């Protein structure tokens, strides 16, 4: 093996196969523990704690162990080092090296997916159109001005602002916010007299939020206790919001006399196209009301172009790195389709990497054939016994 470039030489110890083996073994442990944890605390909570995090603290002890992201980073660094300084780039090793490149591409794809994926759902009634979808795992504070006759103007502040040391605002609304507590799962409970204070306004005067562990069916109710300032008279203070359709928004008046509707809601994302539901069709199994198949006939409009598309099982709508799947429906009153939306810039990487891995294995196999034939011939030659 030729010596690596001096710049790359520090990477040589990281090209050790031992790093890969031990890291992969630890990954197996994480998968087992995370899978068991999911039964009690739900899929989303387990994903966040064991796989999307860098460290985990077992049973909240002051011990930090590598979580999924750190473990995969170690594997990726090891594989990159192996490719740059540990691989023999000779003809007989080309198949193995191509396979390693394929695995490297797979891991790069997973990094892209980890940092760019957004998921959610969009519900559209027959005859209605929508261009936003909601991600119920993330929430945002929404401030809506309904004073315009034709439009509602909403300004939203995402979860990244929910730190107790951060006050945030925007020029579009004359209010400032500071989240005191953010709960990933909570429940409203009665506030005792000893807890009450003049600072607590609206529902917060009677209700406080009790933090709960992750729900094992992912039915988590997110809540915030937030300080709002810029309101009129004595309305400035601490308010409580829960992200749930039944929790009515608070109507508050700012110093400038304008009324705003404030709520905590599932994070909304704008699609680069709009979808109009022309018809929702459901076919039942004969003699029952159990769905056999259901589909949505939609018209997709983007810029000046429109396209008629049918979305049904195994036939999602794919456009601009978005994939929309037929997920569910409702037939209460006007028929409504519910589409699952996934945005993933790395969606093609697994396909590309699998093809590269296949090519590498095939090349390696083909290159090994002459050696195998020679070895077989040697084995079959009779021994000279003297």
């Amino acid at each position, binding site marked *: 093996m030729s010596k690596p470039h001096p710049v790359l030489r520090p990477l040589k110890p990281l090209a050790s196969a031992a790093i890969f083996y031990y890291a992969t073994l630890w990954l197996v442990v994480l998968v087992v523990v995370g899978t068991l944890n999911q039964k009690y605390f739900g899929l989303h909570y387990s994903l966040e704690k064991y796989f999307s995090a860098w*460290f985990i603290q077992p049973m909240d002890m002051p011990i930090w162990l590598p979580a999924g992201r750190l473990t995969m980073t170690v594997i990726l660094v090891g594989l990159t080092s192996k490719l740059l300084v540990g691989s023999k780039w000779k003809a007989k090793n080309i198949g193995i090296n191509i396979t390693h490149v394929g695995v490297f591409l797979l891991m790069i794809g997973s990094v892209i997916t980890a940092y760019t994926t957004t998921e959610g759902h969009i*519900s559209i009634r027959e005859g209605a159109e929508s261009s936003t979808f909601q991600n*119920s795992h993330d929430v945002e504070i929404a401030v809506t001005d309904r004073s315009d006759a*034709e439009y509602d103007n909403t300004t939203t502040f995402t*979860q990244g602002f*929910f730190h107790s040391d951060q006050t945030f605002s925007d020029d579009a609304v004359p209010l400032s916010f500071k989240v005191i507590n953010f709960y990933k799962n909570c429940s409203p409970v009665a506030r005792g007299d000893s807890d009450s204070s003049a600072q607590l306004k609206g529902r917060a005067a009677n209700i406080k939020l009790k933090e709960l562990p992750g729900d094992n069916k992912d039915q988590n109710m997110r809540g915030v206790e937030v300080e709002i300032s810029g309101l009129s008279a004595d309305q400035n203070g601490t308010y409580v919001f829960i992200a749930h359709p039944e929790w009515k928004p608070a109507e508050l008046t700012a110093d400038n006399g304008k009324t705003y509707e404030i709520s905590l809601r599932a994070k909304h994302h704008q699609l680069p196209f709009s979808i109009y539901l022309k018809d929702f069709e459901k076919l039942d199994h004969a003699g029952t009301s159990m769905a056999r198949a259901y589909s949505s006939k939609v018209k997709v409009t983007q810029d000046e172009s429109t396209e008629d598309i049918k979305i049904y099982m195994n036939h999602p709508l794919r456009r601009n790195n978005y994939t929309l799947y037929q*997920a569910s429906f409702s037939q209460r009153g006007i028929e409504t389709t519910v589409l699952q939306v996934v945005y993933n810039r790395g969606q093609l990487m697994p396909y590309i990497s699998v093809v590269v891995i296949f090519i590498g294995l095939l090349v390696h196999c083909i290159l090994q054939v002459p050696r195998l034939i020679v070895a077989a011939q040697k084995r079959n030659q009779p021994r000279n016994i003297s």
Partner: protein
Amino acid sequence: MNKLTLITTLVASAAVCLLHSSCREKGEVQHFRTPKADKALQAETPTPASPAAPTSPAAGATNTAPYSWMLPDGWTALPASGMRLATINIPSTPPLSASITEFGGTLAGNVNRWRGQLGLAALPESEVDATLQEIETKLGKGYIVSLFNPATPKKGLLAAIIPRPSGRSVFIKIPGDSAELNKISAEFTAFAKSLTSAAK
């Protein structure tokens, strides 16, 4: 794994973690402009199962239904889950289960939807009214709906609809064998009449 490899791995990992942990998720401000007509549609379009609705809590109680009732002998109530305010288990052979929910939609629209699910033809609104039994509940006027398809007698429906001032209605729905539903019809009507707002 030799010492140098181990040390290099640990140092590199620590550096990556320190770099990443010093960056916390950044907040993002977005602006949406929605035509007012869309809001009415969005308010009623369903979302995938949400947690049970939060209500004014009694001390320490959570996720309780906003209504209370008198259960007939042997009937048991399970707490709210998903979109249901409650589930009522009814002893029979086979066991029956009633769901209590609260949604929008018109009286005729909901009845015709149920008719469609049982393979019955939809009726004009005036004819739907004629098939309903009006009752007086503690929440106000309500209606008993009893549906069955002679072609599939094991798939019947017994339901109560109680319109609310908010424009939504409370639904108590029991699907099951028509013969069994007939047997509990009187108890079901008494149960529906007993529905009242939960004590605050």
